[in-house]
Structures are given as structure tokens and as C-alpha cells.
């Protein structure tokens, strides 16, 4: 599997995700946002961080980069695309994913390990997990409060396009387990074709028991299949 990680000025989880991809034997390349040609890839990752300082709206300025046109083309031809944290925000700004990420309900940056539930394991990103499996994954964001209109929300539900929801350690989905106020506890969503996943939690931070746990590994290994 060949992967490309897009690097914007201000990206800061690019190295972390590259470590995860390399650990899983992806042939990975870093791609600077000013490039106009994307190397051939099976997976494109838009990493976390503060592209352009998160100025204006998180992800807004990166969403206008030259390389994004290529990413959109690749996405439309079925390439797998993963956006983590700021990457998710960028994907919504480009329109590849619908909805938006508002400020956390407590208006503070939040870094902690949270529980999320796998909502659908019939996708290229989640096949190695069980549906309803509870994972413990680190979040680190200021704008993770997912919001979308009623119509799209119905679509997400009816077509099984919700990837992960925040839950407690037993898998209950409730307000208390919702760290940022996201609508219906949504932590990650797919596009209609399920070749694009945007998620706020950082799977690349959970690949090493010495540092945390390895609940994130199966996301990458799912992609290898």
C-alpha cells in the first residue's frame, strides 16, 4: 500500500501519522501543500495540527491549497482518504465531507483519552474492529464540536455513515461522555461512498503500549486489506 501525507504550514501531527503508517508497512511519502502533483497513492492522509494557525476557521485556509484540487480528484476516483482532527476540519472545508466543526462547548482546548464506539465495521477503515467495539483514543482539539443540518444527519444515520461516536467505557452514548458537544456524540463520519473518513480522535497516538495503548492500530491495518 502506498500512502501520502499532505503537509501544510502548521501541520504538526504529520510526523506522528507517518510513524504509524511506516510501522504498518505502508510505503509513505510526505507531500508539501504547494505541490501540484500527487504521487500515486492508495491512501491519502490529511494530518492533525494547526494548518495556518487555525486562523479564520480551522481548516479554511488549508482547504484552498493547490494540492487540495488533486486530493478532490483522487477522492472522486475512489482513493481512500483519512482526515484526522485538523484533517477532518479541512475535509469539511473542502466539501468532501459535509457539516462543520464548531468550537468545543466549554470553549477550551481539550486533550484527553476518550472512549469511542465503532458504529460500522463494514468499511475499508474499520473492518478489523467489531461493530460496537469501544476504543480508548486521545483527542486534542479546540473545534471538535461536529454540527450538521437535520437532513444530512438523517442521511448519516440511514446510510450508516457515522464512523465513531463518543461513549463511556461501557459503550453508553450519553451527554456525559460527549467531550465537545458534537451532535449525537459524533466523533467521525464517512462520505457516501465510504472512501473518505474524517475523525477528531487521533488513532496515530494509540499505536504503542509504551506511550498509550494500541487501539488505533487496527484502523491502519484495516486499510491494508
Amino acid at each position, binding site marked *: 500500500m502506498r500512502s501520502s501525507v499532505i503537509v501544510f*504550514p*502548521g501541520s*504538526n*501531527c504529520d*510526523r*506522528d501519522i507517518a*510513524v504509524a503508517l511506516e510501522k504498518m508497512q505502508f510505503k509513505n511519502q510526505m507531500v508539501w501543500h*504547494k505541490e501540484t502533483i500527487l504521487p500515486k497513492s492508495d491512501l491519502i492522509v490529511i494530518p*492533525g*495540527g*494547526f494548518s*495556518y*494557525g*487555525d*486562523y479564520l476557521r480551522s481548516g479554511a485556509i488549508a482547504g484552498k491549497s493547490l494540492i487540495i484540487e488533486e486530493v478532490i480528484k483522487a477522492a472522486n476516483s475512489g482513493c481512500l482518504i483519512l482526515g484526522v482532527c485538523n484533517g477532518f476540519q479541512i475535509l469539511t472545508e473542502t466539501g468532501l465531507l459535509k457539516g462543520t466543526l464548531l468550537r468545543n462547548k466549554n470553549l*477550551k*482546548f*481539550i*486533550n*484527553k483519552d476518550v472512549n469511542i464506539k465503532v458504529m460500522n465495521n463494514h468499511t475499508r477503515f474499520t473492518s478489523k474492529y467489531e461493530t460496537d467495539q469501544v476504543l480508548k483514543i*486521545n483527542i*486534542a482539539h*479546540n473545534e471538535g464540536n461536529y454540527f450538521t443540518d437535520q437532513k444530512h444527519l438523517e442521511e448519516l444515520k440511514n446510510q450508516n455513515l457515522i464512523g465513531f461516536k463518543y461513549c463511556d467505557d461501557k459503550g453508553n452514548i450519553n451527554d456525559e461522555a460527549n467531550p465537545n458537544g458534537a451532535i449525537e456524540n459524533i466523533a467521525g463520519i464517512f462520505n457516501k461512498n465510504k472512501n473518505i473518513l474524517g475523525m477528531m480522535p*487521533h488513532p*496515530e*497516538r494509540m499505536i*504503542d503500549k*509504551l*506511550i*498509550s495503548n494500541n487501539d488505533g492500530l487496527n484502523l491502519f491495518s484495516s486499510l491494508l486489506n
Partner: protein
Amino acid sequence: MKFEEKIIQKHGLKSEEYKSIQKLLKRDPNLLELGIFSAMWNEHCSYKSSRIHLKKLPTKGKQVIQGPGENAGVIDIGDNDAIVFKIESHNHPSYIEPYQGAATGVGGILRDVFTMGARPIALLNSLHFGSPSHPKTKSLLNGVISGIGGYGNCIGIPTVAGETKFNDTYNENILVNAMAVGHAKKNKIFYSKAKGLNKAVVYVGSKTGRDGIHGASMASAEFDENSEEKKPTVQVGDPFTEKLLLEACLELMKDDSIIAIQDMGAAGLTSSSVEMASKGNLGVELDLDKVPCREENMTPYEMMLSESQERMLIILEDGKKEKARKIFEKWDLDFVVIGKTTNTNNLTLKFNNKIEGEIPIEALSSKAPIYNRKWIKKKLPNTKLETKKLKKIKIEDALVKILSSPNYSNKSWITSQYDQMVMGDTVQRSGSDAAIIRIHKKEKAIAVSVDSSANYCKSHPITGGKQIVCENWRNLISVGAKPLAITNCLNFGNPEIKEIMGEFAECLEGIKEACEFLNFPVVSGNVSFYNGTNKKNIYPTPVIGGVGLINKLSKPIDLKFKKEKSCIIIIGKTFGHLELSSYLRENYSIIDGKPPKVNLVNEKNNGEIVLDLINKDLILSAHDVSSGGVIIALSEMSMQSEIGVKIERPKKLIDINEFFFGEDQGRYILEIDQKNLDKIEKMFNNNNIYYEKIGFTQKKYFEIENQLKIDINDLFKINNQWYNNY
């Protein structure tokens, strides 16, 4: 130019100092030159009151690559890896504008570290606020925490440890100290010493605006009612640009283009150019027309004194300009040659083809004033605490009172606002004795911690100085790291008062003694005087930031109990020293007394045996005993692990409160598997280590036989409510 006394004073210069300037120049300075002298001769840049004392600190050791005097200290951790670190204060700016003050404090210390060729890998901070009931405290706390997080999170360097304390003494003068730690290759370290004639002096980074003009003089002035007036000089941080600057500098540092590099910190362009020239025994000529400016019509005075953030000055090797320019352009940063090195030994400033200022470099550096200020010694207070006379309180109530107090409450309200995990190498986050950061792609790690004890330092500065070094050393040992070296941030009041100068001199004496004894040298640091208002000075608050090495990271040790039925041991003798304890402070509001004795011999022996046990994998968990005493340390181990304890009443009982709340130094609590007990006891006996077996871990309850029994969940709640309710 003739100046009115008032103008000279406004520049923070005394009239004798002005006379020396006239003598050094053999004429009167013009306004630009006066501004430059004021920036270079103030306390912050010249260390004029502290220098003779700082000289006494031990700064050498096998592990030291670079001691104080550069942008940051550098130590050797083997295999061509070096750690670069320093701590710095941003107290006054943070009091005026807490968000930006704290943010730019983080930005400034990061530049000190990456100028030396290191990639920053961890941030720490030491924060001292006024009383929680003081009307300003809450917004200062909020602003400072989000400022620190805002900068560190955005640039993508984990903030992994720190301390947050509240005390009336900081009501009008909070302390915000930030520490940065970086990793470099030992053979690729960059310094600030200029070399060679006619080398290009290059300005890179953000444009220059009117930010913080006179910031450096402000940092050295006491606050008064007029301090409001100083507000418009606030600098705004731009962590995004700093991230670009960091990447661009590290990219340029891959080859040999750079002769010298220096960040523009306090006193911006002035101090950076003077420092490089002075170290290289050269002159420097700047063409101020070329300085990239953000605002229109900026004067040479404003350009030279601006403290705009995210800027660096580089002296480039010949023939490297175009390559370097490409790198900075890739990162959307300004790159302008603004001058050259000269053989005049002068700082020469040109503007509109005219020389606007010319000052001998040595007048700004080696000839800057140095004062041997008067100071007096402090006697150990001869208080005699009569425990018997105190109103009896239940041990449980005393414990609850401490655990729910602002100073002892769980800090996760703070630490969850910091990204602690970015960069993927944080082995241990906040909440442990020291944070552990793995060296990227290696099996070794460093441990880092910051510590202070203003109450001890106030009461008896020498003891306090020793104690903070020891506490820091203990925190590093407790996570299995061999302590290597420290940085220090010395926050004190007005040095012109002899009692305050005495506090300074004696704290340093204490730090020196402890560092020497423990082979724990000082490799960098910062002095912040004039903390206080209208003659009310803060408690002396030196802060120690330490770094230790964990050579083999197979099984990191922490303070969480690991299982039930293991044996709990205290290493080090408990005398029951209650004076200046949190027990007396929180329960009886008694704040006088003397600090606990520091016995360096025991400190060293106890630390070494703990490290030995950890290295031999004989310990399940470890925690040092610090303020709050044994009972607080035990409860922290319980709360973090959700495993309880059953403690037996100590046999040689002094007084139960003295035993559990006493703050005697040099102690650790260890959790030990019973099967290893014999072996360990033998090691203790062979090494003459004093230890006591005090009980066992158990399920669910925090218990002292016949004294108290609390469900850990309740303990946890008690410890977690303060910040959320504040």
C-alpha cells in the same frame, strides 16, 4: 544631546549610570543610543545585580556540553544525542495581559532552544498566582493557562509538566515561568559567537512592529499605579509563524551555512546583534532601512527596541545566501540581509544613508555596570511549635482539607488544556513526579520536572535553596531517571533592598551547595528581579527545572500502585517536621516557622538506592514525599491507581499527625512485591538506608488502622472539585 533627568529615568537609568555612559562614549548619547543603553544595561539583559552571585554556581560536569552563557544549556545523553534546555520568566507581561504574556513567554523560550539547533520536544511551566479570593486571580489563571496551551498546542510541542501554586504574596505580581527542552545532535549545535569580517547579518522571521518597545526595561521595573500606562506595549504571539520559523531554521541547520545565530528576545535587534558581535570580538553594522517593518514610519529607535516576536538574526557563511533565502521563502518568512560584521568593534546603525548611532560593543556588554549590592543574612527562625497546644482535629478532616485546597487539588482542569501527546513520544504525562519523553525512535528517554518552595525560601533561604534542588532531584529519581543537570529561574523582589538581595544571595548559596553535592550542575537560567509592587516584594521564588536520563525504557516507573497486597515502604527518616507544613497552613493558618532540615548525604544515598532498585526492576511504583507529607503522597498513589492502602500505626510513634503530615526531606514511598522484600531489605541494610514498612495495598479503601477509612472514589471527588467549582 542633553537629556532631562526625567527622560533618563524613564529609560530606567540611574544618574550615575548615565554618567558612565557619557564617559564610555566620551560624549552625550543621542536618543537612539540612550534607548540602546537602557535596553542593554537594565537588569534583565545585563544581570548587573546578580552576576557576581551567579558566578558561584557549579556549571561543569562530564555531562555538560554548554553551560550558562548561551541561549540555552546543553547536556550529553550519549550516542551523539544532546539535550538543550532553559527556563525563562514572563511575569510582568503576563500580569498585564495574561493570554499574550504567557503565550509569548512560551514562544520566547522555544526560540532559545531551537536557535541552538535543537528540535523542541517538551514544554514545562511553573505558575504562581495570588490568593484565589483575590479579584484578579481567576482571570489571570484562565488567561495564562489558555495562553500557554494556545502557543504550545498550535506549534505542536507537548506541554508535559509544571506546577501551579496560589499564595497572597503574588496578588499583584504573578509568576509565569516557561521551560523548553529540545533534542539535538551533539555534533550539530549552533552558537551565538560571530566569526569573520564582512559576513552577512541576516534578519529572518516576522516583521518588526511597535510591540513591546521597552519590554526589557519594563521587566526590570517595579509596578506602580502607573503601570496601566505601560499597556500598549503588549506583544502578541503568533505560534503559527513560530512553527514556520522553527522548521525553516532546522532545515537551514542541516548544512554549514550558519556561523552564528541568535533569537531576538528581550531588547530584540539590539541585544541579538550586540551579543553576537561581543562574543566574537567584532563590530556590527546594520542598515536599518532594510529592516522589514510591519508599520509605516518606524524610527530607528523603535526598530532597535521593538520586541516583536518570532524573529531571528543569523550570521551567514559566504556564498550561502541564495540557498538560505530559498528555504525561508518556502516557509513564507522574511529573509533580508540587514548588515555585516566589521572590525570596528562598534555597533553602527545607518538609516537614510546616515549614521544614526555608533556605540562601542564593549560599552554595551563587558563594560555594562556590575553591582555588588548590599545584602544581609537571614537567621533560622527560632519558632518553637507547641503541637500540644493546637486544637485537636481528626486526621481525616485534615486530609480532606488539604486535598480539597487549591494548592493540592488535581490539576487536570489545567493539563487537559495542553496537548501532552503530540510528537508521539510522551511516555508519562502530567500527574507524575516527572514527565518522561522518549528520544524519538530510540529506547532511551529523558525525565523532566520543575519545582519551587517559596515558603521555605522565605523562611530560610539557604535551606530553601537546597531543598528545591533536592526536591527536583527526587522527582527525577522517582521515575527512574538519573538526574543530569538543571536550569533555574530566580524570581525575586527588588534587589536594591538588602533583605531581598540577601534572600537572593542565600538561596543561591543553597542551590550551589546542593548542586555541588549531588553533581547536578546548572547549565542555564534566568533572573527576574523587581517582582512586587510599591515596596511589597514577593517571597523569594527560585524555580528549578531538572533533566534526567533513563537509559533503558523497557518499563517506565510511575506513582500508581500496581496491585493489591504489595508492601509499602518509606525510605528516609520521618521526624515529623510540621513547621511550614501544609498541615498547619491549611488547617490552622499558621504560616511561620522554619523549613525542614536538608541532609544532603541522606538525600544522595536514598536517591541512589531508589534508582538502583528501579534499575534492577525491584519496585512496582515510587513517589517522593514532598509538601503534605506521607499521607498526601500515599493518597496520590491511591487516587491515580484506584488501589487502596492499609497503613499500620507506626511503631515508634511521635504523634500521629506529625508522622503523617510532617514534611521531612529525602523520603520516598515505594511499592514492593512481597516476594522481593527480603532482597530489598538486605540492600537497605548493606547501604545503611533508613526505611520503614508501613503497610500494604488493598482494594478500594484508603485506610489508616483505627484512624480513617475512606473510599478512594470519595477521595478522588474531594481532590477534583476545586478547579471545576472555581
